[in-house]
C-alpha cells in the first residue's frame, strides 16, 4: 500500500493535483454562483418590497418553493430545465444543440437556488434601514439609483452581512452536491481518486480538510469585512 504522501503527491500517479484542481473549480463555481445569487437577491428584495402584486406573488412563490425543496432535487430539475430551454432557444435561432459546460451550469444552478435565500436576507436588511434616512436623502434630491448606492446599500450591508457570510459558507458546501450530477469539482475528484485507489478514508479526510480550510479562511475574511462595514455603527454591547 502506498503511503498517504505518495497518494497525495501533486503529480500523477499522486492525486493531490487533481484534488487542488477540484478545489479551484469548487471556488470558481461557488464565487460565480454567489455573485449570481447576490444579484438575484438584490433584485428580488427590491421587487418584494416595491414591486406590484404580480411581481410580489411571483417572488414569494420562487423563494418559498426553492427554500422548501431539497437542493439536490432542485439542482437536477434546474439543470435539465435549463439545458432544454437553452436548446429550444438555440433551435429557434437556427443554431445547433449544445451542452452547457459544467462550470456555467453549476454557477447557474447553485446561483438560482442561492438567489432565493439572499432575497430573504436582503429583504430583512432593507427593512432595517430607518425610513427617515431615505426621506432625508429624497429631500436632498437624490435620484433612485444614487439613493441606493449612497444611502440604502451602505446602511443595510452591516445588517445583511452575517446572513450573507452564512450564505457563502452554504454555497461552498452546496457545490459538493454537483458531484452527484457529475460536474468535476472537489467532491467528484475525490470520489474518483478514492475509487481508483480504494483509499476511501484517506481521500475523504483530505477533501474534508480542504473544504474546512476554505471555510475557515472565508470566515476570517468575512470577519474583517464586517469590522470594516460596521465602522460607522455604534459599538455593540
Amino acid at each position, binding site marked *: 500500500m502506498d503511503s498517504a504522501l505518495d497518494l497525495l503527491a501533486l503529480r500523477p500517479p499522486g492525486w493531490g493535483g487533481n484534488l487542488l484542481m477540484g478545489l479551484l473549480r469548487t471556488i470558481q463555481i461557488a464565487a460565480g454562483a454567489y455573485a449570481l445569487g447576490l444579484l438575484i437577491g438584490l433584485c428580488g428584495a427590491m421587487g418584494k418590497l416595491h414591486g406590484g402584486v404580480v411581481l410580489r406573488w411571483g417572488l414569494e412563490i420562487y423563494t418559498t418553493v426553492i427554500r422548501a*425543496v*431539497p437542493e439536490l432535487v432542485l439542482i437536477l430539475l434546474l439543470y*435539465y430545465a435549463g439545458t432544454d430551454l437553452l436548446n429550444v432557444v438555440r433551435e429557434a435561432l437556427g443554431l445547433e444543440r449544445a451542452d452547457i459546460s459544467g462550470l456555467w451550469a453549476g454557477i447557474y444552478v447553485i446561483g438560482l437556488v442561492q438567489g432565493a435565500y439572499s432575497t430573504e436576507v436582503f429583504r430583512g436588511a432593507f427593512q432595517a434601514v430607518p425610513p427617515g434616512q431615505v426621506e432625508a436623502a429624497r429631500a436632498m434630491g437624490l435620484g433612485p439609483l444614487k439613493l441606493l448606492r449612497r444611502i440604502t446599500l451602505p446602511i443595510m450591508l452591516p445588517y445583511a452581512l452575517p446572513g450573507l457570510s452564512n450564505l457563502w459558507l452554504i454555497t461552498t458546501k452546496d457545490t459538493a452536491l454537483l458531484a452527484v450530477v457529475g460536474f468535476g469539482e472537489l*467532491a467528484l475528484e475525490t470520489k474518483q481518486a*478514492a475509487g481508483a485507489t480504494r483509499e476511501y478514508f484517506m481521500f*475523504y*479526510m483530505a*477533501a*474534508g480538510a480542504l*473544504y474546512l480550510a476554505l471555510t475557515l479562511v472565508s470566515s476570517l475574511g468575512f470577519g474583517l469585512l464586517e469590522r470594516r462595514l460596521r465602522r460607522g455603527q455604534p459599538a455593540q454591547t
Partner: protein
Amino acid sequence: MEWYWIPEYAPKFLEGLWITLQLLGLSIFFGMALAIPIGLVQVTGPWPLAWAARAFCTVIRGTPLLIQLWLIYYGLGSLFPFIPGIRETLIWPLLREAFPYAVVAFSLSVAGYEGEIMRGAFRGVPRGELEAARAMGMSPFTVLRRIWLPRALQNVFPTLAGEFILTLKSTPLAATITVFEVYGVGGIVRQETYRIYEPLLFVALIYLCLTFVLVVAFRLMERRLPRRTA
C-alpha cells in the same frame, strides 16, 4: 407530461417516505441527544471538553455533509471488515447496511449545527434564574433538568425548528449511499420510465408537502410552549 407511472410506483414511494421520516426522526433524536451536552460543556465544562466540543462543531459545520456521509460510509465502511472477528459479532449485519451509516452521518451533522445553537441557548438563560434555583436547594442536575434546559430550549425552539427543516432537505443525500428514501425512489422511476421531469417534480412536490406539514407542526408545538406575557 405523463403521470401514468404514479399508481404503479405509489407503494415504493410510500416505503421511501417511511424511510425518509425514519432518517429524519432518528437523526434529530440522536443528534439532539449529542447537541445538548455539546452545547452545555462549551458553557460550563472544563476547557478540554469545551475545546473539543468547539472543534467538533467547527469541523462539522465547515465541511459538506456529502463528504461526511461518504467518509463514514465508504471510508469507515471500508475499514470495518479489517477488524478481526467483527464478522462474528452481533453488529455485523448492521454494519453491512447503508441505513445505519446515514443515520450516524446525519446525527453527527445535527449534533454539530444544533450544538452551536444550544451553546447560545444555554448562555442566554439569565443567571438570576439559575442562582434562584440553586438557592432553592436544587442539585446541579435538577437545575439543568428543571430550569436550565427547558428555558434554553424554549428560547431557541423556532431556530431549532428551522434547522430540522434543513435536516429534512438534506436527507436525499442518503440516496447517494443506496438508501432508497423518497429521492432515491424518484431516481428508480427515472431510470425505469425514461421520464426526466415528472418523477423529479413529483419528488419535489412530496418534499414541499413534508416541509409544509413540519412547519405547521412546529408552529403548533411552539404555541403550546408557555410564554411569559408582560
